[in-house]
């Protein structure tokens, strides 16, 4: 079953008086339960494609349909609600809030929901356990290593149990050993049924994924 349908997607950036098509007519289907790697050289449009997939950036042309919702047919605020329900983002530089503890960072997506405090705590604790950070719930992010911070970011993306995880070079700031541990975690999540789309430049990571998409100059080179 198709979770994502991308049709003739174009994103144009204006730099000076030059127009650049960062994504230049991509069509693509992604099925439920896939673990997709998006590769390609720097500037090939990987991040741009990912933000459009996540409903963060409006395309110039084309459509993104997720779970039968045309997400750019929604209003801005509806798209925010959509992100809350459907998408968990994991960023390369972790993007944790420095003034919240590990537990609180994981609970950010829950702060705007009506669940009870105890439910929220329970969900966050379960996710921290899943990513192997059980004992560090009350630390602040700057007291953790890079690999641990990335796990917090993953737990935060998962806590809402969204159907789709979007990760942009999640291992880009990590050493090879830590990188492998994180990829192992993603693989395990995928085996439990989680759909993941991950931008990566690291060839080694491809052994963990189920599918590889390669971009060049904003177009599909290999699918």
């Amino acid at each position, binding site marked *: 079953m198709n979770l994502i349908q991308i049709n003739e997607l174009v994103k144009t950036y204006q730099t000076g008086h030059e127009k650049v098509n960062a994504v230049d007519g991509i069509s693509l289907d992604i099925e439920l339960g896939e673990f997709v790697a998006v590769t390609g050289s720097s500037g090939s449009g990987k*991040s741009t494609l*990912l*933000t459009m997939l*996540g409903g*963060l*950036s409006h395309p110039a042309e084309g459509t993104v349909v997720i779970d039968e919702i045309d997400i750019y047919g929604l209003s*801005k*605020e509806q798209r*925010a*609600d*959509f*992100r*809350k*329900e459907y*998408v968990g*983002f994991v*960023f*390369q*530089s972790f*993007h944790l*809030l*420095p*003034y*919240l503890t590990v537990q*609180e960072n994981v*609970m*950010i*997506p*829950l*702060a*705007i929901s009506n669940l009870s*405090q105890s439910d*929220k705590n329970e969900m966050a604790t379960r996710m921290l356990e899943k990513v192997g950070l059980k004992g560090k719930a009350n630390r*602040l992010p700057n007291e953790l290593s890079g690999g641990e911070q990335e796990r917090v970011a993953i737990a*935060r993306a998962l806590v809402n149990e969204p159907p789709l995880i979007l990760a*942009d070079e999640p291992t880009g700031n990590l050493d090879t050993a830590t990188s492998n541990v994180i990829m192992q975690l993603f693989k395990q999540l995928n085996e439990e049924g989680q759909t993941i789309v991950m931008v990566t430049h690291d060839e080694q990571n491809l052994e963990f994924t189920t599918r590889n998409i390669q971009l060049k100059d904003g177009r599909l080179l290999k699918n």
Partner: protein
Amino acid sequence: MKLYNISLNSLWRRKARMLFLLVGLLIAISTVIILLNITQTMNNDIANKLDEFGANILIVPQSDELSLSYGGMSVSGVAFDVKPLQESDILKIGKIKNKDNIKIISPKLLNVAEIQQKKVMVVGVDFEQELALKKWWIIIGATPKEKDEALIGADVKKKLNLSLGQAILINGVPFKIKGILEENGSQDDQLVLIDLGRAQQLFNKGSEISLIEVAALCYDCPIEDIVAQTSEQLPGAKVTAIQQTIKTKMKSIAQFEQFSIGVSIVILLVAGLIVFTSMSASVNERKKEIGIFRAIGYRQSHIIQIILQEAFLISSVAGIIGYFLGWVVSIYVAPMIGADSVAISININMISISLMISIIIGMSASLYPSIKASRLDPTVALQSL
């Protein structure tokens, strides 16, 4: 965890960030509180000190012949064809509409008498009222209590070579000098004061009085109203308002009040600007953070809520601390400008006013920056995504 936990932690774990804003707001609020406290205290103080300013209304018998002058003291006994005031007139003054504004009524009987072959002005007074009116008098010895006791002015003591406790004869009747007035340069130095009733007996005046001095205070009605009401009650008397220092003082308080309002408005506008610039700067610094919230699925209204909650927390703290800071400073400043008769106490109404002003300024100056923050493009904010 709720949105306010995010606001609270953001402030609590990054205190330095908002310190400038907090201090700016705090100084503004406490300055306004100081000005408010001081104007209020000055008003209360003048009410307390009213009697220190002496009489402001003088009542004398109507006369076509002479202008009766208390200052010149050439007064009563000389005038003829005059219907003198009676003690019953005192009660009539107590019946006017603004009777609550009348604080002191001091009747006097003036006569010239002979002591040791010298002519002296002898004044019959109600000592209690007279002393309330002449707060500045310094008495050596004591105030007369008995009918045959007298209080004499410094000049009388010198010229007649008298001393405390000495017995004197006034028109041949014996009196004892109970107290001596310290020299104050006024006509009081020349007087001998005795009990009003005793004086009426001594000079065969029945229940006559020569003049009445009245001290009245009215904030919201002019003294002329009280004068007019008294004239109505006493058709045979001439009632005049005496120009007085209290009037000038009340006018200067009113001017200070206007000045305070003006200064407060300027200060609060500046505080609003400080809040606006620091909030805008803070939003700029937090672009990435706002991008994270938006990526996670926070609505624009959630972003506005987070920032306005922070503004609310800071301005509440500034409002409360600002009040107490202002209160402490007012306690030191008020006596310096002469308002020393009133204790400045903690006032719940003032705390609420302080809190409200602070919150209104803090929130309204943060509104635009928060809306701007909510409209940031999350992809620009997450450049490294």
